[in-house]
């Protein structure tokens, strides 16, 4: 089974995570600049929150991998994306029914490796 690992991380963590994932054998990823808020409601450490909920810039990272390596990949991301502060981000793991590489029509696991 394929899984999509969708992570929302602090933008400044992206480069380190990218390098580590490539080193760990991850063959591809997509990155989007997004805005969002979580439990910190858009306030960074030290700010005094009022009623308004704010959006903060985040980076969304999408990686499709085989189920077997999901735990290794997420473990690595958690380790590197952790800031020790609120707002470090979240990871979602989503089942992927199938994947197809357009150039070759390969499908399933061989489309992502």
């Amino acid at each position, binding site marked *: 089974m394929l899984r999509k690992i969708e992570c929302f991380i602090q933008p400044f963590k992206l480069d380190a995570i990218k390098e580590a994932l490539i080193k760990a054998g991850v063959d591809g990823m997509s990155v989007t600049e997004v805005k969002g808020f979580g439990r910190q409601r858009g306030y960074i450490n030290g700010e005094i929150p009022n009623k308004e909920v704010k959006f903060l810039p985040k980076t969304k990272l999408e990686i499709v991998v085989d*189920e077997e390596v*999901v*735990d290794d990949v997420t*473990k690595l991301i958690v380790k590197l994306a952790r800031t020790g502060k609120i707002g470090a981000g979240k990871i979602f793991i989503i089942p992927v029914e199938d994947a197809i590489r357009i150039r070759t029509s390969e499908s399933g696991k061989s489309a992502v490796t």
Partner: protein
Amino acid sequence: MSNSLVEKKNNVWEMTLKRLNGTMSLLNLKPGMKKYLCEPRKIIEVAVTVKMDNGDINIFKGYRVQHNTNRGPAKGGIRYHQDVYLDEIKALAMLMTWKCAVAGIPFGGSKGGVKVNPSELSKRELENLTRRYTFEIIQNIGPEKDIPAPDVGTNAQVMAWIMDTYSIDKGYGVPGVVTGKPIALGGSLGREEATGRGCVYSILSALKVSNIDTTNLKVVIQGFGNVGSNAAKILYDLGFKIIAVSDVRGGIYNKKGIDPYRVLKHVEKTGSVINYRESENIAGSKIFELDCDILIPAALENQITKGNASKIKAKIIAEAANAPTTPDADEILKDNDIFIIPDILCNAGGVTVSYFEWVQGRDAYFWSKRKVNLQLRDVMDKAFYEVYDIHKKNKVDMRTAASILGVGRVAEAVKLRGIYP
């Protein structure tokens, strides 16, 4: 302390009945229902005759107790231990009934045991003992009747022998007669570590409701068998600091933390955790007194007693073992505001994945390890919050709350099915 002494001081059956009576009063059950729930449905006592390697014939006492089957087939482990006695098996069978009900899985409760020290038997003797014991109880077990599993002193190989003996008798393969089988015979991925993993999930829930941050927490584990060592590994991977572990021969301590993977290698070589070089040896009894956040008793019954309960400094006790805390110790822990994850909740992960193994066996379709672990987490989380809600709503301790949930579900099933004829 010899077991006969423990037996006199703390009869685990009377202790279990006492607790049950407390719960039943809170549930306002009728006297007849109370009597019904106290009584095991079936007690089987057998002589397990084995021809030893030297030609002598030896007889070992074997038991199988089926406490309740109203919610589904009976489910429970088989224990090989020199101190096995009927009252203990009865109590453990009853605990299995409540445990399956708390976890919300469709099983009743049972337990079995043979009074034997398995380390004194050769492999052939152990196989013959297992096959003979299986034969003696064969009319009473089966995938729809009563499904054994490994417990203290038994393992996947023993389950394979039981499965084979039962299958030979039936004339066709019946993998669903036992759980905890080897993977090659239809065992479930993740079964081996399931009790430890479930225990960890319940700890994570307890930390969440207690608003304790999970970073840098110190963990002490009594018992480094299947349950203790797997809980240690999973917690270590999550960033917890394992500062001490123990087994029957003693304990090891390092306030900076111990790597359970390396301790396991040491155990494989030497047979015990003691003398592990990156730690200091401590007496097994001292393990409860260490300064820690989480204490996991993962050995046998009656370990936390009136004598040592007041020395415990942990904020959370996760009862990975069955009935590790005596009732009088419970009172002390309650006074000291220690959050207890009671045994029938904390160690329900084992029987939950046994249930998954049984389901997979019936379907003849097997799940990935990831699916097993995720489904296990769902069951454990659901059970934890159901117990926790009763704990909050009824203002009772977690142990009573778990008991109310489990006993209440069984009582409801008994009522709905009615009494035959």
